[in-house]
């Protein structure tokens, strides 16, 4: 295992038994992902981009340990992933905050799961609320927060129990464009500050290129890695309009072409 390797996929495949639409009562096998092999480096921000149906969410479930691969293995720090753990934190698109807990209560939930003593929980929760800029909203219930605020709380909750890897499943997809851009740069700032390994799933090409040091391009039917694109952008946060930077445009076009190659060949027309 190379020194800076965090997560390794080795020929991972996952298939499900689904109902056969043609035959009543019959089932058939559906392969969501296959032949997945790639590695994620320690402290890296890697984005996974692909159209719907390319197994993005399956992939996340596999890393989080909520499901096991049908074949192949996934390693984290050289050990095979066999179940969920607090060394990985997930941020979901639909926030998944507990509605009966306040912003602070939600953050404390993960800390409680980790067994952090009560007095420390409160302190840590305050710290992470401050990190996402929501100190003033500690006692609000989720329904009293905007979508962007909810997602900040969800990010704070996942960061609070100090996982090595942050898994993000289209976390900004449900937000408006303005809020999304704000949260994207905020996430980059948090990443630089915390040095976490971040695996970020998205269907937005711009988002993938803006956030990722590397972009894993996935293709559907069944989902597999088409190519991993290096994004040579530096100083993303210093350049206010990095999206018009020639390097950004070039990288964006490369990812775009990879995703649309199949269309040119007529596979989807």
């Amino acid at each position, binding site marked *: 295992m190379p020194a800076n390797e965090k997560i390794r996929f080795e020929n991972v495949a996952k298939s499900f038994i689904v109902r056969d639409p043609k035959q009543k009562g019959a089932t058939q096998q559906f392969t969501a992902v296959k032949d997945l092999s790639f590695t994620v480096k320690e402290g890296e921000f890697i984005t996974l981009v692909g159209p719907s149906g390319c197994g993005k969410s399956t992939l996340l479930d596999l890393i989080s*340990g909520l499901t096991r691969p049908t074949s192949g293995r996934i390693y984290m720090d050289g050990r095979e992933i066999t179940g969920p753990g*607090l060394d990985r934190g997930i941020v979901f698109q639909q926030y*998944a905050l*507990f509605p009966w807990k306040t912003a602070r209560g939600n953050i404390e*939930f993960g800390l409680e*799961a980790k067994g952090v003593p009560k007095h420390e929980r409160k302190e840590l929760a305050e710290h992470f609320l401050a990190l996402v800029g929501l100190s003033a909203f500690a006692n609000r219930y989720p329904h009293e927060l905007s979508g962007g605020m909810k997602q900040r709380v969800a990010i704070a909750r996942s960061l609070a129990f100090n996982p090595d890897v942050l898994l993000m499943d289209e976390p900004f997809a449900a937000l408006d464009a303005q809020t999304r851009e704000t949260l994207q740069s905020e996430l980059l700032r948090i990443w630089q500050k915390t040095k976490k390994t971040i695996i970020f799933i998205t269907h937005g090409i711009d988002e993938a290129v803006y956030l990722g040091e590397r972009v894993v391009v996935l293709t559907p039917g069944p989902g597999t890695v088409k190519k991993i694109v290096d994004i040579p952008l530096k100083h993303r946060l210093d350049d206010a309009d990095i999206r018009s930077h020639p390097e950004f445009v070039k990288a964006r076009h490369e990812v775009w072409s990879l995703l649309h190659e199949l269309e040119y060949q007529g596979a989807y027309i």
Partner: protein
Amino acid sequence: MENIKAVPATLQSRNIRIGWSINFRRLLKQSIVLVLLALLWEIAPSTGIVDPAFFPPFSDVIRALWDLILSGELFHHFAASMIRSLSGFSLALLIAIPLGLAIGWYPLARELLNPVLELFRNTAALALLPVFMLVLGIGETSKIAIVLFACTWPILLNTIAAVGNVDPLLIKSARSMNISSFKLFLKVILPASVPTIFTGIRMAGTGAILVLIAAEMVGAKEGLGYLITYSQYNFQIPEMFAGILTIALLGLLINQGLSVIERKFSRWKQQVNS
């Protein structure tokens, strides 16, 4: 209660006089129709629109009610009904909630038992009153038992449904934090189920009174249902109406009490009207 909350706190504290006038107008709006109804009840018998012998004026009913209160008779019946309904209702809570949580937690149990439970739920409790009386006699046991029976189904079925309908994403989120099944149940399933369980509890509260009064009318020596039928047999019509009025108030009281508790438990829920 809802309306009091709807008035912004600043208004209440900053200007008591404005608060007063708002409270007064609210009170007026809520009571005007009730007052008109009472007035109609008073006038209709006196003008001969309805027979005062069967439908005595409101003032007569209030006088009868007052006499019943003074003699302590009303309290005696009220207490008897209250003890029966509360015993049956509490027993139903103690049995149905844990049972519902258990059945809801195990999908197989849910699938196996649901048809039976639906059948029982849709069996009118009163239809079983003769059975209860045959088996348990006409004493307290049969009355508490039928209240227990009537209260159990809405609570049980709502609890089962509540556990089954917890947002899978919340479960997934909690599971990803590697918490034990027991903790998942205690920290996620249970709190998420509270609002739906409370719907069942309120349904049971209404049912408890309904069934008890009917049971008391059929065979009892005390209780509000007994007061009503007894008064009717002896042609004490104002007393009969006094009993009916008391039951209406009792029902209201129970429902209000339950909604106060419900609001306390589901503070986090989005209020549709706020």
